[in-house]
């Protein structure tokens, strides 16, 4: 823990993560086949309270708002079942949201009772991925673009075992409404690249026609002065219309480095 200031410090938390896992892509603009392969990603997630914790009306609980954000760069390569063609994909994702935290047993003097926090709040995220198919005629590229307002929910549990502190953390995000890029199958790459015949390619999306689920289950372990994160992450994105389907699903391992610091609030 790094103390940057002693005056009215606010706790900030950063997690730098490396991810690796399996990925499944269906992009009927490029191919009707399911592609599978591996992906790697580098990400950073941060969390900080809006203000100091205040006692909640409930007994032994505290309630407070915090904000959370993340940025991630992901890349992968997938093959079709017959191994005759491949798809490269490269994407950037980022988001920011506000979470209301209900914390039970915060700062308890009883080590046997874990500190449990429930989190719920809105989240906004931007998702952009480019896919390049190895062999194709006049449709070499496809991309996902989505700007969503999401709901985020999470549970966090801090406990101690044999003098080591652990935090079990689950966080899930699902889209509610937003906009997405959804090209017509019949629009060629020439037309897309020249910006003609793409009317209607930006579409309104919501939970019924776009499923975007992001969930992560992780365990933070504190060893000496370093906190490590180990977890699994699952992402599922599926959308489509007029016979077109796009889906991107991944399951991967997450290894991260967690660090916290306290920073003085700005005084104007």
């Amino acid at each position, binding site marked *: 823990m790094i103390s940057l200031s002693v005056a009215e410090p606010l706790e900030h938390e950063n997690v730098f993560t490396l991810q690796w896992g399996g990925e*499944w892509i*269906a992009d*009927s603009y490029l*191919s*009707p*086949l*399911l592609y599978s392969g591996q992906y790697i990603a580098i990400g950073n997630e941060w969390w900080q309270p809006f203000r100091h914790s205040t006692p909640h009306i409930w007994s*032994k609980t505290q309630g407070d708002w915090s904000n959370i954000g993340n940025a991630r760069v992901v890349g992968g390569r997938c093959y*079709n*079942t*017959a*191994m*005759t*063609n491949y798809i490269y994909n490269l994407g950037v994702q980022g988001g920011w949201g506000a979470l209301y935290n209900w914390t*039970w*047993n915060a700062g308890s003097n009883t080590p*046997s*009772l*874990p500190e*449990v926090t*429930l989190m719920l709040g809105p989240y906004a995220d931007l998702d952009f991925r480019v896919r390049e198919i190895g*062999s*194709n*005629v*006049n*449709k070499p590229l496809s991309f996902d673009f989505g700007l969503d307002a999401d709901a985020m929910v999470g*549970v966090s*549990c801090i406990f101690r075992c044999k003098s080591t502190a652990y935090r*079990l953390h*689950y966080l*899930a995000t699902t889209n509610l409404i937003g906009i997405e890029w959804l090209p*017509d*199958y*019949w*629009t*060629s790459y*020439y*037309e897309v690249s020249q910006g*003609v*015949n793409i009317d209607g390619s930006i579409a309104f999306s919501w939970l019924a026609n776009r*499923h975007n*689920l992001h*969930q992560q*289950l992780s365990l933070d372990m504190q060893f000496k002065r370093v906190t490590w994160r180990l977890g699994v992450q*699952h992402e*599922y994105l*599926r959308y489509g219309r*007029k*016979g077109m*389907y796009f*889906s991107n*699903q991944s399951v991967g391992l997450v290894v991260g480095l967690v660090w916290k610091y306290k920073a003085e609030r700005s005084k104007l």
Partner: protein
Amino acid sequence: MKETYCKVLSVALICSCVVLLCSCVRDAELTYPNTPGGNFEALWTIIDQKYCFVEEKGVDWNAIHDEYAQYIDTLRPNDYRGLFNTLADMLNCLNDGHVNLYSSFDISRCTGWYDGYPENYNPALLSLYFGNNYKRAGGLSYNIIPGIADTIGYIRYESFSNGFSSSNMYYVLEYFKRCKGIILDVRNNGGGSLEYSYALASTFMDETTHIGFWRHKTGPEHQALSDWEKLYVEENDMPVKWRKPVVILANRRSYSATNMFVNCMKYAPRCCIMGGKTGGGGGMPLSYELPNGWMVRFSSVKLYNADQQSIEEGIEPDTTVFLLSEDKDDIIEAAIQKIKEYD
């Protein structure tokens, strides 16, 4: 209190597992089964729904389905070459050079669109006009034709897949600046990139020119096409512009992007198309995959000239000339004569 924590955690974990399992559903509706019958049905449906010339080709695609389905039924499950040949034969009924089946061991091709037409091209004769010390700029080979009082430049462009830059074009035109005209030979040029087609045509345009339309498919029905979208060749912004005569040499093997280039040049000033009718290929091809990973290429965007006439079946030259001699290229000779006569 501890019980409450456990309940909350358990519910959250169970919910997350349920969501995770439910979302692991494979998109089964995307594909046909990877069997001879499944691949056949997938291919037939792709052409039926995505190919833009089903009706223009004058074939009964449903009847073709019934005819070839019986051959598929006789194939052994592992007879992939037999399957390939059967599917290739079915595609060749369309008589379209843009329709091909790609596998790891073979690529099907159709020759019906140029069989029976005069060759109108003999590469052995080119050295008479080209010499052996010709220059190359990108995909363009060029030289001044020797032994002619009025100097005439000759450019041979083998394929629109071989790119060239505006810098290449600048030096070619700069080399020809004292010439009275240029012969641009795109015979046996099977096409390539439309971008190069437009770029080359713009070299000879005085201004931005409307050269045609395109319409792409908008749905699985055969006649489902988008509105007419105009196509233009932009004015060339190179410092050197060609404002002298140009003769384009074409033959039946001038196909696809070359066909489009010839169409563009129909609207260029001081230009004459000479030789034979082009091969056509007036559709922009796309591709799609079969369940076994083979790829089918087919046209999905229709290209038209500025009079809204399809160019799929080829473009007639302004002057038809046949290559009949064995010791000289009659078409190049006619082109030289045409430039000489130009005032």
